[in-house]
């Protein structure tokens, strides 16, 4: 039962972004909690809040696009997390005062969310 599913997952992942080098998903989760990302996004691993005003981040690693318009690549994601308006002036997502290292951890965590 599970084997074909796993296989399917692997196939899907084939041309998807690799995990971010030097990014620590656990650190990322801590940053996500501190920053309160889940006020707007439902984030797997954060029990509360389960924000409803922005996209659900479950399965984010398997998604082709960020915010529905940008390619889901580590470098872009890190920029997006730090300063989303610079990539999309119409976004509601404000800039966050994160270091590049912190953004890398966050990206690492988000890419770990690939198995639905």
């Amino acid at each position, binding site marked *: 039962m599970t084997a074909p599913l796993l296989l399917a997952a692997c196939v899907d992942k084939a041309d998807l972004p690799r995990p971010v080098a030097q990014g620590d998903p656990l650190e990322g989760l801590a940053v996500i909690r501190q920053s309160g990302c889940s006020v707007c996004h439902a984030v797997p691993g954060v*029990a*509360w*809040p*389960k924000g409803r005003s922005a996209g659900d981040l479950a399965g984010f690693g398997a998604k082709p696009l960020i915010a529905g318009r940008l390619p889901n690549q580590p470098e872009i994601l890190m920029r997006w997390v730090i300063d989303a308006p610079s990539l999309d002036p119409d976004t509601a997502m404000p800039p966050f005062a994160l270091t590049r290292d912190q953004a890398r951890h966050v990206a690492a965590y988000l890419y770990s969310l690939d198995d639905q």
Partner: protein
Amino acid sequence: MNGDPGLDPEIYERFPTKGRRPRDELKTLEAVWCGPTKPWEWITAINNNFVGVYYVGAAMLFFVLAGVLALLMRTQLALPMTGFLAQETYNQIFTMHGTVMMFLFAVPAVEALGVLLLPQMLGARDLPFPRLSAYAFWAYLVGGLSFFCSLFFGLAPNGGWFMYPPLTGTTYSPGINADFWLLGIGFIEISAIAGAIEIIVGVLKTRAPGMTLDKLPIFAWAMLIFACMIVIAFPSVILSTLLLELERALGWPFFDAAKGGDPLLWQHLFWFFGHPEVYIIFLPAAGAMSTIIPAVAQTRLVGHRLVVMAMLATGFISFGVWAHHMFTTGMPRLSINYFSAASAAVSVPAGVQVFAWIATLAAGKMRFNTPGLFAVGGLVIFVMGGLTGVMVAMVPFDWQAHDSYFIVAHLHYVLIGGMVFPLFAAIYYWLPMSSRRPLSERWGKWIFWLMFIGHNVTFMPMHLSGLMGMPRRVYTYLPDRGWELPNLISTFGSFLFGLAVMLWIIDMIRNFRPFGDKEAGNLFNGPGLEWLPAGFYSLRSIPVITSLYPVWEQKGLGRDVAAGRYLLPGAPRGERETIVTSPITAQPQYLLRMPRPSSWHVWGAVFTAGFFLILTVQAYVAAVVSGILAVYCLWEWAWRLDRPHRAATADVGGGVRLPTSVSGPMSHGWWAMVITLTVSGMVAVMAGFSYVFLWSRRPDLWRAPPDAASLLITLGLLAACALGAFGSVRSLKGARPSLAAALMLTASLAAAAAFAVEAGAWWSSGLRPDANSQGATVFALLAWQGVFAGIGLLMGLFALMRRLFGLVTPDRPATFELIGLFLGYTAAQGAASLLLVRLLPGGGA
């Protein structure tokens, strides 16, 4: 006058009688007391062997329902910020958990135990007012189930079981949820009071001859004190629910600070009931412990007298500790110190009982059967709850612990150790008395250990989460406060507890077989009369008691009782009857004819419950119709009482003849009326307290009372009412029934007129009930008086109708005496409340 008159104890020497009893005597007895044969007779049954079992069953049903709510809450709280239950749902559920456990489980459960056990324990055929207990039961069942069902419609109250205003006022609780609480609970309290009256009169007046107070079983003592406490404490909560409902429905500002009310008035009224309530629940359970522990240790209770004194002391002190729920409200330090000392003191009598139980276990030899395990387990848990109770009696500690999970832990230790475990001990101990098969001992031990461990795993960590800062009554909690682990453990424990209860239910289904011809019997070799062979008529004959432990110490008692060699070996007049004895020395006084099954009290209960519940959903016409139907049913019920007897005396065996009717202070009806009026008086006293309390808060709002002329008229009318009632009873005894009826009607009219004059005077003085706290309290006192005037009027009419139908005879003045008492009380209450509101502001500012 002899304070405790009755047949001389010398006649006891005639018993047990010699010789054979007539052959058909037992058959008649069985026929008279036979159980239901047709389906609907299961509902109209009034015998305690049926109603008592129904009553315990219903209470356990509510225990399970409220327990399921607890599991839902624990599931929600297992992890921080879970979404298992929505906020509003959780708030309704925790409100219902507390309310159902306190009002629909704990008090009814112990009351039910009393109804079920007392007649047999006391050697009576039944309690003196079996229809009243049946009425109380049906009102409780119908009202309680409807109340519980409000949860399924999202209409359940959500203001906490303590219902603090202003949160529960219309501003912040506009829905009918709070009304469900107020009307539902107010009315269930009435049912509790009905049961209390039954128990007091039963314990005092229907004991076996010779069962003097020093031979009164400890459980009966506990039930007596319990019932007296209900009579004193419950009026306070009845009043507070009435006041809050008046504020909600009509805008009378009792608790609204903007208009001179005070939210703390509610807290005083509620906790004046609420704290004694804890002991009200605990005492009967402690009585059961003091009965079961001697049985499992097979020895007399060590320090029996001390234990009785301790229970009495608990009863008294418990009325002086209510404000320890209010240490954080900013009370004056002097009050705080007093209540702190009283709260510490109330633990002393509990300690006396605990050590009496330990001493008893040491004096005998503990047999580790299921009732014994539950008793000892309850003892340990209760001691722990008592110790945390001493902690929170220390004010500084309470400032931290108050309203935190520490209190949740404390109260569950006290109530589960002090009431639930003893109740399970009682169920395991007494179940063989009414079931053909006992419950399984093997399962029982599993259930005990699961429950004991489950309890501690659930509630022990709560001490910690409370000290870590977790407040009570939260539907969730934030992560990262360190509360996760203790909460998760608590949730795990609660399911162990739930599993234990589930196993118990399964075992009940497997083994509980009540209402049969045969019972499992005295498996644990208990010492009380309830263990003698019995039928639905209770004991075959009512024995003369010479020992506190008759089954152990009166040799051959069971054989002689079953052979009919004691009093009332049959049904001499072919009716249900029992012997009424004097309250202190239990000397036989008269033969009480008891009612038979009837449907009037059942319908009365249904319509009474209907009245309150329909009122909640604001269908006023339907509510009034239901109310009128309820009054009609009660009228029909009363109409069938107090009928002439064929003979003035009857033979109760051994050549002893007892009168078949008495009146005045010797009669059970007189006692019941006096207790009822005590309840009313307590409501009036608490209303008077509310008036003074609110006046002291805002004397500037008070205006002058109406002029003194109306006062004199009202006082005159009240005096006429009292005199008329008194004269009526006198003229009836002087064989002038028509004059008596006329006087009684006049008296009731005078009471009604007095009410009308007084209400008119206040109204025309310009005071309005919704204007400020003076208006609210004055009109509340008036309204209370108005209710009595109204009932008095119905009674006056009742008296007249009795006369018209020729049911009034000089040798049976009981009905008139009771109406006279009621009207006399009404006059006195009217005068007292009148003088209070007229004189207290000192002529007005």
